[in-house]
């Protein structure tokens, strides 16, 4: 129960508790934030660095169709990732929540291990699998190819023939948007499952049973009762997946073969290659603004 501090001692204690964090966040978070905002209105010096001349050039450049296109693509990929994570993750969370308690603990434990394994390692796993010399293609051009060829000898169907041709060369999985999405889904799936699980686990299952008595259809009871009740978990999970996916840098870099550019890569190259700080700041700021607005909207509707 939160109360206003009354005595002087209480006020001082409140100050003591708040100060270190407020100080740290002000100096090392708010100030940098303001700095980025300020720099986005500057201009790039000839060799990088910032010239403090007021200009909207960076934002104007962002409105350029090239960057809007990249942003749209990034949004698309992040959205796809979130939806897929939801489709895979929510039922998974439901599965865990409906197991007997001893099983549940073990299952959550099993979930934590990938969650706490280094993100780079988990992304690398898919690089290893999807590469042209990776597992998928080894199987595709190996056993699968042999099987199809053998089958084609027995049954000379044109379908089998073209399949045999197709399985001779590796599937170009690496460097595609699909590869990036797989990598992102794999990396952020636990972030979807855990909040959903937390929500579902708190469900009063007698409500669920009551719902099932009301609705003949289990699907309908699910949609009308369970989903709304677990909405906070769904919202939290979606936010936890969408945001990092939107700002993804490592995954498109490793799995996209440096061919696909997401907004995170653009920001990275502005700071590490082009050294155009004002432009990089502008893009960064737009990204943050979009996310902030999106999160606020999502939370508002979630509460309703």
């Amino acid at each position, binding site marked *: 129960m939160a109360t206003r501090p009354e005595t002087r001692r209480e006020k001082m204690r409140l100050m003591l508790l708040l100060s270190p964090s407020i100080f740290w966040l002000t100096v090392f978070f708010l100030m940098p934030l303001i700095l980025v905002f300020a720099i986005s209105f500057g201009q*790039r010096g000839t*060799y*990088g*660095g910032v010239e403090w001349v007021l200009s909207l050039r960076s934002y104007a450049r962002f409105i350029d169709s090239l960057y809007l296109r990249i942003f749209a693509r990034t949004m698309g990929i992040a959205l796809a990732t979130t939806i897929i994570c939801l489709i895979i993750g929510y039922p998974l969370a439901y599965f865990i929540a409906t197991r007997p308690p001893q099983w549940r603990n073990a299952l959550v434990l099993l979930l934590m291990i990938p969650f706490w394994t280094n993100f780079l390692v988990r992304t690398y796993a898919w690089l290893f699998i999807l590469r042209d010399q990776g597992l998928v293609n080894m199987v595709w051009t190996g056993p699968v190819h042999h099987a199809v060829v053998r089958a084609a000898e027995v049954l000379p169907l044109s379908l089998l023939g073209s399949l045999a041709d197709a399985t001779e060369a590796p599937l170009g999985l*690496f*460097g595609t948007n699909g590869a990036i999405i797989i990598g992102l889904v794999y990396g952020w799936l636990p972030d979807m499952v855990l909040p959903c699980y937390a929500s579902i686990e708190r469900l009063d299952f007698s409500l669920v049973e009551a719902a099932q008595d009301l609705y003949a259809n289990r699907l309908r009871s699910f949609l009308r009762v369970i989903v709304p009740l677990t909405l906070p978990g769904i919202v939290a999970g979606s936010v936890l997946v969408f945001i990092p996916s939107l700002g993804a840098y490592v995954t498109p870099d490793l799995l996209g*073969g*440096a061919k696909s550019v997401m907004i995170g890569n653009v920001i990275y*190259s502005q700071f590490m*290659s082009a050294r155009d700080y004002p432009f990089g700041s502008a893009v960064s700021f737009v990204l943050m603004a979009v996310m902030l607005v999106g999160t606020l909207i999502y939370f508002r509707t979630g509460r309703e």
Partner: protein
Amino acid sequence: MKRFVQQPLILCLILATLAALAAACGAGQQSELADELHVYNWSEYVGPEVYEMFEEEFGVRVVEDTFANNEELLAKLQAGAAGYDVIVPSDYMVDIMIQQGLLAELDHDSLPNIENLDPTFTDPPYDPGMVYCVPYLWGTTGIGYNDDAFDEEPDSWTYLFDAAVASQYGGRFTMLNDVREAMGAALKYLGYSLNSTDEQELAEARDLLIEQKQWVHSYNAENYEDLLSADEIVMAHSWSGDVFMVAEEDERIWYAIPQEGGVIWADNLCIPDSSNKKHTAEVFINFMMRPDVAAANSNYTWYASPNQAATEFISEEILEEPAIYPPDDVMDRLEWLEDVGEAAPTYERMWTEVKAAGS
């Protein structure tokens, strides 16, 4: 008599002691080496035992961090990553860094081994008189390839850019993930200079790269040579030494300098102005110019050494390979990368457009 002699004698003694102390202090500061030296280098760019050798001889531990391309090096330095003592920028980057005042002047007195260098390299256009840097290794950019996949040597940019030819190798070749190199290759194929600042020419290069993108496996500047050997690709836009390193073990892999001409580049050892271990750094640089050390680096990286005295220690294979030490007529067709000044943002923008295209 005694006192008459004693006083000046004592005075002399005191003065002599003070002088000796001062000399010792001064000399001590001079020859006192730091415990640790931070080197910021390209990856796999130094002979395997070289750092250990230096540590044993001088008692200085070398800590190496790596960067992926010149722009990243510059970005980190500009961002205030102080504490690097030796850096290894390429030619045009040295030019940029000098203009930005990021480099410290070298004291040639601490670098006696500098006379081991080949006179051709002692007065580079980007750093006349080697005031700031000393050349380290030099090489070319061209096409690494897998012999088995080709009837004749792919010694032309046509193999990478011509629609009819490149499409045959769709998804099986890489381009360097380096803005100047990639744009440079495109410019060379179109017959322009690698250092063009003409917006029209740059736009053409960009369009060519965009068209090429559908056949490119990936943009890779780190391990394309391994991809070649692992049969993931059959052609790679490469730096010479990387390909030769792999060719040592895999005889199907070789390297060709395109007939239209390519890039000749030299990487240099420099000391950032922000370093506070300049003397130790100079000792290190001097060590690197020792004939046996320079040869060790060359033998490991398969790049050419600008160190003349090292020739007697460098393996025959390297010395006689025309792709590493090109004959004069080939050298004439090679171009050095230079700073493009104001056009640099244009290059970057074009490159971003290439990266963003198509998907």
